[in-house]
């Protein structure tokens, strides 16, 4: 996969996803060492190009790169200051001329990472574009579910919240479906995209029906500041109807786990008691995020033409 862009889960095959998850499972061990660094990407340069603020994802990619010994450069800009001076493509081309081995892009407009991938030599990893995709988040969610449940095939995954505006939901719908899980989505009707069932999921407007018998319940972040009044009458009403607490969780399987991409609006998507304790696995998701991003960087980092055509040296030669 060297040199390959990771733009969305929609473009990945089941085999690709499994390769990434298996690689990430090996990377997890490095995070538990005293010396949390391997020399694998020594001398490689990684650019975090964030047009939208994101502490969590950016830090996770930065730590992942550093644990692989890459040089990590953070390039954060607000959308307006870029457009004043130069176009998006000029910014990206300028950075590309500095010969990075990976460019990680976050932008509030869907499709920007795809456009950049067309012009950049370096592989592009989408770290979230608008309401489109957030592949590394979905992959770390799949990694966490595999860790907790052993396998994804045959599980029932319920995604609760603002499905229409969520790149996390979209990427997870593609990912969990490709790995053979049954995916359900639930939220107020205003938050369910019109043709969501065309993605192969079942849509519910009733929380209880959606999580009945679910193995995994994933709550999405509600962007209260933007959506109140537009998509639901009040935060309190949303919390009462779709907020998860232990009582509502009884309808899910007894060993169901609760996930959230963070940051959590406590008392809205998740009750306090759920945000902090099992069965929620929120901090496992964060920890797995670093291992997963290490796996992505390991698999794709490298500029085209830099890899020689030799690939011998597999098992059997004795090295």
């Amino acid at each position: 996969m060297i040199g390959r862009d990771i733009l969305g889960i929609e473009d990945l095959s089941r085999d690709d996803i499994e390769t990434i998850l298996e690689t990430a499972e090996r990377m997890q061990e490095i995070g538990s060492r005293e010396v949390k660094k391997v020399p694998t990407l020594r001398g490689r340069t990684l650019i975090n190009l964030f047009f939208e603020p994101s502490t969590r994802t950016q830090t996770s990619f930065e730590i992942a790169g550093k644990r692989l010994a890459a040089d990590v450069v953070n390039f954060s800009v607000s959308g307006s200051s870029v457009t004043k001076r130069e176009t998006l493509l000029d910014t990206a081309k300028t950075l590309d001329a500095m010969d990075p081995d990976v460019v990680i892009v976050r932008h509030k407009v869907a499709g920007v990472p795809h456009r950049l991938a067309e012009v950049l030599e370096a592989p592009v990893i989408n770290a979230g574009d608008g309401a489109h995709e957030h592949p590394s988040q979905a992959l770390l969610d799949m990694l966490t579910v595999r860790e907790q449940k052993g396998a994804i095939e045959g599980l029932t995954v319920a995604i609760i919240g603002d499905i229409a505006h969520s790149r996390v939901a979209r990427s997870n719908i593609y990912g969990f479906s490709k790995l053979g899980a049954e995916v359900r989505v639930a939220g107020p009707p205003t938050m369910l995209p019109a043709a969501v069932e065309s993605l192969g999921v079942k849509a519910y407007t009733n929380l209880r029906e959606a999580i009945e018998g679910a193995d995994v319940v994933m709550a999405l972040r509600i962007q209260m500041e933007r959506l109140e009044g537009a998509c639901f009458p009040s935060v309190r009403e949303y919390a009462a109807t779709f907020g998860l607490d232990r009582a509502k969780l009884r309808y899910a399987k007894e060993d169901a786990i609760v996930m959230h991409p963070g940051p959590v609006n406590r008392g809205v998507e998740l009750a306090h008691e759920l945000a902090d304790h099992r069965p929620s696995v929120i901090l496992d998701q964060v920890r797995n995020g670093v291992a997963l991003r290490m796996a992505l960087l390991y698999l794709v980092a490298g500029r085209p033409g830099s890899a020689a055509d030799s690939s011998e040296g597999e098992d059997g030669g004795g090295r």
Partner: protein
Amino acid sequence: MAQIEAPPGTAEAAANPAASAPTSDFNPDTQIRERTVLDDQAIRRALMRIAHEIVESTDDPSRLYLVAIPNGGVPLGRILADKLESLCGLRAPLGILDTTLYRDDLTTRASRPKLRRTEMPSSVDGRVVVLVEDVVNTGRTIRAAMDALMDFGRPSHVRVVALVDRGHRELPIKIDFVGKNIPTQPNEKVIFRADEPEGDEAEKATGVGALHLIVRGGNGS
């Protein structure tokens, strides 16, 4: 967490089921000549001798720490741990150390190699670490293993066991304990394989099946 890795040493067997008969010298699937150089008994005898040599060369057997390089080193390490225990009554810890992330050819390869498991049960500080590898040739894997090992602490000594030494060294690496020196052509492959052990899940996780050492290719002489 589920272990998704195939049992150590079985990759070759899975890829080529016809090669599982150790006595065949010709593989009809691949049209490539194969010969068994060491059979199960010979390999176990060599490991017994190596266990004696390790004990003989170590002042304090309680400081021994075996570190197997996957995949082939893992079954060999398990057997060696058993033999050492029978000799000195002490069970040395057995770690597994994947060297892939420390390889020196990652920048020149067209794809990234699959990672294997690493499991180091305790600190290597002050221990006599014995690296266990199936086949040593250029010495590059042992170089990578030593670098990886140093990230886990500061062993007092590092020794190397190789079941087979092919001898085409490219780095100044010396093998302390060798099962058998096998001079080979560069175009030949030396394959160590451990069959999956019989029995329940627990035995499969820690046991070792029949062992084979095969040379494939070359002029078949």
